[in-house]
């Protein structure tokens, strides 16, 4: 991959403690613009903690985060959002009783009448833009006016992804287990969606347990172990066996 200028995201020496547990012990990672990096590792290796630090949900205790070479302070989800870091959470962060458009625009509605909390959102525009976004991502939802509780797991995931990328400010998109708890056909659709995002040049971090899926969508794989990024490898140059050995610690920084 051609590198022009500084990487999009540089994370250096991030540390995070929870009481006596050192969840992150100097994790570092660098991601180029337009790249899709998969973050893998055993349970407790620190994947979620690292992602939450970048997303501002659980800010790091120490360490440096740079976006496009500029050091940034991410102390809250709001900070991260303002910098264009968008996160898609594992628990499918949808409001079940609202419809698709309401979820896609939640917290970011276009307004028909501006009155603070009592502003009236422009629902016609929201419906139209939602339809366009779903169309672009080739997501098929027969009745978008129904509460999202009625949708399938894959459709819900698609709505969550649609919401995340719809926001426009999307320097970096972080997906936490995007294919977990989905059926075979739905996994296929979500992976296709991630590939089309990659083709559009979206920079992504994908946290996943499933190496099969990781190999299908990532440019590089970052392996975490014991609170550190132990190795970063080019997906096309390794096998699943290599990754498994890196995850369990059979090879030390062999391909880094």
């Amino acid at each position: 991959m051609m590198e022009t200028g500084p990487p999009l995201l540089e994370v250096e020496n991030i540390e995070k403690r929870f009481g006596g547990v050192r969840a992150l012990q100097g994790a570092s990672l660098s991601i180029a613009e337009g790249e899709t990096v998969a973050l893998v590792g055993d349970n407790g290796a620190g994947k979620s903690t690292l992602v939450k630090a970048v997303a501002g949900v659980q800010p790091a205790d120490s360490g440096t985060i740079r976006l496009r070479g500029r050091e940034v302070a991410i102390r809250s989800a709001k900070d991260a959002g303002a910098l264009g870091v968008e996160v898609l959470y594992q628990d499918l962060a949808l409001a079940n009783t609202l419809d698709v458009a309401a979820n896609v625009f939640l917290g970011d509605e276009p307004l028909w009448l501006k009155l603070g909390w009592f502003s009236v959102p422009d629902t016609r525009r929201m419906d139209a833009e939602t339809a366009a976004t779903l169309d672009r991502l080739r997501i098929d939802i027969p009745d978008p006016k129904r509460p999202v509780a009625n949708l399938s797991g894959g459709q819900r995931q698609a709505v969550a992804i649609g919401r995340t990328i719809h926001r426009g400010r999307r320097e970096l998109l972080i997906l936490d287990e995007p294919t977990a708890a989905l059926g075979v056909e739905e996994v296929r659709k979500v992976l296709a969606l991630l590939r089309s995002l990659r083709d559009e040049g979206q920079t992504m971090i994908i946290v996943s347990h499933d190496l099969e899926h990781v190999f299908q969508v990532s440019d590089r794989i970052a392996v975490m172990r014991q609170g550190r990024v132990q190795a970063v490898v080019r997906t096309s140059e390794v096998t699943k066996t290599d990754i498994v050995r890196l995850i369990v610690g059979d090879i030390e920084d062999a391909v880094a």
Partner: protein
Amino acid sequence: MNGPAGGARNRFLGAGGTAERALALPFFNVAVAIVVLYAVFTAITGETFNTANNQITIMRAAAVFLILGVGQTFAMTTGGIDISTGSMIGVVGAIVGSGLELGWMDPIYAIPSAILVGAVLGAFNGFNITVLGVPPLLATLGTFVAYRGFTQYYMGVNLVTGLPDVVVAVGRASVLGLPVSVIVALAIAVLGWFVLNRTLYGRYITAIGSNPSAAEATRINVKAITASTYVIQGALAGVAALVLMGRLDSASAAMGEGVELHVIAAVVLGGTYLFGGRSTMIGTLLGVYLIGMLENGLIQTGAGFFVQRIILGLLIIAAVALQLQQRRSGPG
């Protein structure tokens, strides 16, 4: 979220299974109950129930519950509840009532100060719930007791009387045959419907009740909005206190006792989820009317106050049980 009646009906006709129907029209049950009970009471009382005068009597008695029901619907949409409403009415009555009686409050300030005192009482609930993290049921149970205790301490056995005309008018005057209190209550309900169904506020409280972490992740100010529902409920308790004081032309330490049960029953019967995320202002309006009608009809058929209490309590349980049943069988 519920659309206007028309939109809900379209979805109702277009939907398939019974669970979807319930979802489209959450106030379907209460509407059926009203029709049935109306017929039953008319049959039993031999037409004294089914008169325009009696309907106005029902509405006048229910006005206070509708005013409070709007605020309760907001709080319940976020997954909360406010059981301190009756006690807030007591405090407002004590402070504003005695201020007016002893002359240190000019009648011009009666209405705004009742609303303001109520809002402050509600803000204390909101603070305890969102900043200290006390569960809404317990936070408002605490103020239910404490606010009533304050009222009794402050008032003793005294009765505030001789209230100014402006307050009495709120409780007693009529315009074109409709009591002012009913007009005020309906206006608040219409405003509440608009806020719930047409504004960001309605969307956000629904999102909070539906999935608080989702709301947080979208950078909605969950704490401030949640707290504000209790401030609104407090301010509306201030309005309700004015109506009650006006109607009785007095305020006592017992004013507002027991209203919380009516309000919660009405809102839940109307179809608003006790667990948050789904609510209906039309349902609240119908629920308030159902309970008003039930009490009125029970009195006319000779059932006493204690029988009413028994039925009211059991109704709340039945309404919640029904919701749990629908939740298990249906989506959402």
